[in-house]
């Protein structure tokens, strides 16, 4: 871990220096990518193939950013794309592969075993607490997890003596990302965000990061937010940019709206089985650099496939 990740004083100053406007945040995907710089630590919301901000990840890849640290609790194929594209040099995560049926990721193995990308592993809860500490503005949180394991040495986590009982506690360090990339169900043009289904870690990630970029399936009038303020999980003043992106997680899932496209994962991993990381480079050309817009990207999947995934989602929550 880097000292800058838990420097709570510097992180606080960055938030104090920021405009915290209740005004207009609506912008374009191209504009969001311009707010990510080479070398940034970017935290990606959702979890594995659920509510991944795929349109934002794609935009960062299209902008050919370099030297990024990707921080995500469970990392799926978006992490593989960032590895092979040369965008990420370091991944901070608890787990990485597509999912159990597709086995251990061959891209993970090639890039980490070959020393091309460093993978800093934390337990799932510890990474959640790193974002939570960041959200709280403190340098660390005490916890009872990760103690005694070899994970302690990987990221350099320290332990502390409880000043009250003398017990040994994990001092889980804060993670203040430079940028948060998030996808939500709905937001107003001022950045007030609502999420359905799994909250994952998004609310903490938004508070921990310096710059917060959000895509939303739907942009709704401010009046609708005000009618259900209890559903708002990220307030507008935390958010820097909001973009309207239907199917913004696809081929990953968005709770109640569309199921993940497992068939697509199968095609993707079969191509890797046949051609190795060359298949991912072809995938980047076809899905990231080829289509000029997100709508063009969705056209590669086709309306029938998107409709099928919507029906599957409706069926699961009915």
């Amino acid at each position: 871990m880097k000292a800058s990740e838990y420097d709570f004083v510097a992180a606080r100053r960055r938030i104090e220096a920021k405009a915290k406007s209740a005004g207009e945040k609506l912008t374009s995907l191209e504009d969001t990518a311009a707010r990510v710089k080479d070398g940034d630590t970017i935290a990606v919301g959702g979890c594995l193939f659920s509510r991944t901000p795929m349109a934002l990840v794609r935009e960062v890849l299209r902008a050919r950013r370099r030297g990024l640290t990707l921080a995500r609790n469970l990392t799926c194929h978006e992490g593989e794309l960032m590895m092979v594209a040369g965008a990420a040099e370091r991944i901070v995560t608890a787990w990485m592969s597509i999912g159990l049926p597709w086995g251990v990721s061959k891209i993970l193995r090639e890039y980490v075993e070959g020393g091309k990308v460093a993978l800093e592993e934390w337990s799932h809860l510890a990474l959640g607490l790193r974002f939570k500490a960041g959200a709280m503005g403190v340098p660390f949180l005490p916890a009872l997890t990760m103690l005694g394991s070899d994970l302690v040495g990987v990221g350099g986590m320290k332990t502390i003596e409880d000043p009250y009982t003398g017990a040994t506690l994990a001092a889980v360090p804060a993670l203040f990302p430079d940028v948060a990339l998030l996808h939500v169900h709905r937001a107003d043009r001022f950045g007030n965000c609502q999420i359905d289904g799994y909250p994952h870690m998004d609310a903490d990630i938004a508070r921990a990061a310096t710059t917060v970029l959000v895509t939303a399936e739907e942009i709704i009038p401010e009046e609708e937010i005000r009618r259900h303020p209890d559903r708002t999980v990220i307030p507008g003043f935390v958010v820097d940019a909001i973009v309207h992106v239907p199917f913004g997680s696809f081929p990953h899932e968005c709770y109640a709206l569309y199921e993940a496209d497992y068939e697509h994962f199968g095609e993707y991993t079969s191509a890797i089985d046949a051609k190795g990381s060359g298949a991912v480079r072809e995938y980047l050309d076809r899905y990231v650099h080829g289509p000029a817009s997100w709508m063009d990207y969705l056209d590669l999947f086709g309306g029938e496939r998107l409709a099928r995934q919507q029906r599957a989602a409706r069926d699961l929550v009915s």
Partner: protein
Amino acid sequence: MTAPNAQELLAVIASRQLRDDTTVFAGVGVPLLAAALARQRHAPRLTMVIEGGIIGPEIAPGRLPISTNEMRAGRRATMLPAITEAFLFAQRGFVDVGFMGGAQIDQYGNVNTSVVGADYWKPKVRLPGTGGANDIASLCREVIIVTAHEKRRFVPRVDFVTSPAWLGGGGARAAAGLLFGGVSRVVTTLGILDFDPASRRMRIEATHPGVSVETIRENTGFALDTAPIVETTAPPSADELAMLRALDPERRFLG
């Protein structure tokens, strides 16, 4: 009813470890099937907690989840907390049993799902990592490991302790600050292993029908003592197998 295969045997024996009126932290695959079977059969007031942020799901037959945080895993759940909050129920002491698998396991029950090889940063084989396994191993009141019994999996010392059980044995777990829980049992395709209460070394507690103590020893990479009484497990019954098979008609996890 055809004889159970290895996955079915694991799921049935594992399901019997769960008691009614308790809570279980279950990973996807065989652990989730075992928990779902227990809930249907003998533990209707068992609550499942899943790490993606799910409490009390009712898994639909034929719609088994692939991951712990997708829509299928949360079907008919009673609560969808944030992931960090889901784990904190375990830290607070609300989770009785943690169910987990293991790529590599040692004589003190420690599990490695991170790297094969001596140098973490230059691994011979990079595995997916802990996910929530380390947290389950650290925080649940009791942990049960469910795994195929193969000599290459049961090694004297794991290359990397991803999920801590008894660490170096004796009082090492508590000395590291892990004041609660620990692995109580390892359910395998050959039998059930537990741990000596003093040394915390793994030992044979039960054998599956037709399996000898010697066969278990031959398939383990370290010396195994036996518990004072070695039991023989009852084979999966017809109704256990029928219920289990109905949960996974696509044979996604039952092979």
